[in-house]
């Protein structure tokens, strides 16, 4: 039995410790916001946070997550109140939307570590996430916008 804390909720799961975290989240915990895209850490659609750091859950054995805090898109904020989600909705970033959970989770780490990212910082933080629809220009705009929203929030 493995104990996982996902979005603040503790669960005990009986699975092969080598099973990728992605499938535990999707198939055992019903958290389907985290997506399967490539299974080999190429596309970033499965990005979640492990103790605050972004990981590709499709290649992360569930054993690595045992006892750590896992945050998925469902835990970023369900009510779209996170500055990134506010910016994403304001700019209408998604098209098909399939990659966007991963994009948002990657962007969340970027903004936490760099509240005022330049375009180059965005390139450094976001290049692990593929968007087949080509929403990159809007992702860039939305990250800048989220940074501004965060700054406004602090100055208030």
């Amino acid at each position, binding site marked *: 039995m493995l104990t996982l804390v996902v979005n603040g909720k503790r669960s005990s799961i009986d699975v092969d410790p080598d099973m990728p975290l992605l499938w535990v989240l999707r198939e055992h915990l*019903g958290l389907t*916001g985290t997506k399967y895209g490539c299974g080999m850490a190429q596309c970033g659609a499965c990005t979640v946070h492990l103790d605050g750091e972004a990981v590709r859950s499709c290649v992360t054995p569930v054993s690595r997550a045992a006892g750590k805090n896992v945050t998925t898109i469902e835990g970023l904020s369900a009510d779209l109140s996170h500055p990134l989600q506010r910016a994403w909705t304001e700019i*209408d970033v998604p098209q098909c939307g399939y990659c966007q959970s991963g994009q948002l989770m990657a962007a969340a780490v970027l903004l936490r570590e760099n509240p005022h990212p330049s375009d180059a910082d965005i390139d450094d933080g976001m290049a692990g996430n593929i968007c087949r629809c*080509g929403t990159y220009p*809007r992702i860039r705009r939305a990250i800048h916008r989220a940074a501004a929203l965060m700054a406004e929030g602090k100055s208030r």
Partner: protein
Amino acid sequence: MSATPAVSRREFLKTSGAGAGSLVLALHFSTLAPSEAALAAPASEFVPNAFVKIAADGAITVIIGKSEMGQGIYTSLPMILAEELDADWTRVRCEFAPVDPAYNHTVFGIQMTGGSTSVWSSFEQLRKAGAVARAMLVQAAADGWGVSAAACRTEKSFVIHDATGRRAAYGELAAKAAAGKPPAQVSLKDPRDFRLIGKSVHRLDTPAKCNGTATYSIDVNRPGMLVAVVARPPVFGGKAKSFDATAAKSIRGVKDVVEIPRGIAVLADGYWTACRGRDALKIDWDEGPLAGYSTEKQRAEFAAMAKTAGAVARKEGDVTAALSSASKILEAEYELPYLAHATMEPMNCVAEVRAESCEVWTGSQLQTLDRISAAQAAGLKPEQVQLHTTFLGGGFGRRAVPDCHMVVEAVQVSKAARAPVKLIWTREDDMRGGYYRPSFFHSLAGGLDEAGNVIAWKQTVVGQSIMAGTPFEPMMVRNGVDGTSVEGAADTPYLIPNLYVDLHSPKLPVPVLWWRSVGHSQTAFVVESFFDELAHAAGKDPYELRRTLLAKAPRHLRVLELAAEKAGWGSPLPAGRGRGIAVHESFESFVAYVAEVSVTPQGELTIHRMVCAVDCGPVVNPDTIEAQIEGAVIFGLTAALRGEITLANGRVVQSNFHDYPMLRIYECPQQIEVHIVPSTEKQGGVGEPGVPCAAPAVANAIFAATGKRIRRLPIRAQDLRSA
């Protein structure tokens, strides 16, 4: 005008309903008939037709028969209806329709999404649906107030009688309106009075796509559901001779192994276990006729074929005579590879076959055929099959498959295993699974007279037909010409007196399919690049020569001039930079791009700027159009710079994003500007027309910057390096 005119898309759409024959369900000319589901609505709800429901609390649900794959119809179609309904937009929601003749494509005659047709083909239908609902609400209010309906107006989900100052919300009127009769005639708004249409509106699907709640078929879960993966032949056209599942079945969690016509399916309690089970299968394959085949072999075969006469797709004047009289002749060969759609959500389908019924959940672009095929596979009647359309994690044509294999596999496995099944294609299955944009080889000759006028254009096209062997073949393949193989070439608008386009459609077991922008995805690159070659050979500015030869194509001309103006065509550029231009019509929209690039001596390409002009006729949601064009530029450039599926030893070489890479955020053009032409012309599509110009605009800019002519895609660094 031509010997064997390529069938235009709209012509095809007009006639295919009849042409597709038995596959097409009864055509619903009465497009406003309620669907079966709508008829079963609660009495308090007002359901005037198949497209809208108004609840007592004022919630308005627009039901759309089209699929949302990112192109934005989940918002733009409700906007059309809400406009005529005068709905309070903040109360409008959208729902995917069940499969029902009420939702058949108004031109295709089947329920499907494709060809960049959703908005224009639904425009009048949804306006009428909204107007009928509005008229019934007005009548209900007027009857209640004892006033004339003509004296009432509507605004933001209220019926208002100004003379008495009375107002009634649509929700309050719903039950009463439901008892009313739809009017025989409704009048539609003057477009000048539009309040929603033409204004940028936030997408209705954005919130669900930002918190993980949007449901794609891969997210569907059913009680007792098993997950299946299928081992398919390593070579197209192969099949399993025998297999041993002993080891697979011994893995904890593997529940069953079943053979279906397309391969061996392993069912397990989860995806990861199913994959491990599949890895443990021992299968003896018969590789079939393509064993040993390779891209090199294909190239040689295609090149040889291009030297022979094909089926004539366009013939104007006498190209042979014109070429022999030309003072300058240019010859070139162009090549384009197979391309995978590589939707972010890999192919998958959930099927639950029961004794007397079947349910299917899938991101379908072709519901009517998918349901018929599911029924056949389940041994049921189509009416016994309920097909639920989910969000599509990308489509690009891949989810509209005439053979419906994605759904058929899932139904077959569910039936054999007697359990609900989610059948998932791994990324590798998806990448190697075929249904590619065909590879193409073009052989061209162009003739210039002494004054540098283009007097001759001869083009031989070689590539597999995507229509051959499908129900669409009788309509789309005429006199040996698949119109989609030569669209964008055979119907070129350039005024060239002697024009000849012919086509070879070799038959191969590699499955091919429409891929975002279909034939235009390859013809625009070839035509716009070779046109550029002719302009340079004639010593003419490529933009000016286009203008001259598009004199009778005003919508081409308009976007061409707009793109050139916004890009500052002709103005000085920093050293090392070059500009390239391309213009193309597809799906009845007109697009021109100007690319600005530079290339390092090591062959590293930077795309500094893409300036895009688009005329798609009257616009519904401008922000969506901008998004579609931005995305299409990146989609087109991904193909131009990276995309290539190759074959070696009969097998597809590429398997995942490491060897079939997508452009990433840091590799995109630094600036993409979209300029929409205000237009009252005929509406065209938006999802696809942004793709074709991307590759030729960049290739032409590379020539301007470096003098290197790109005639083969994808563009490789070695093609760009200084010698």
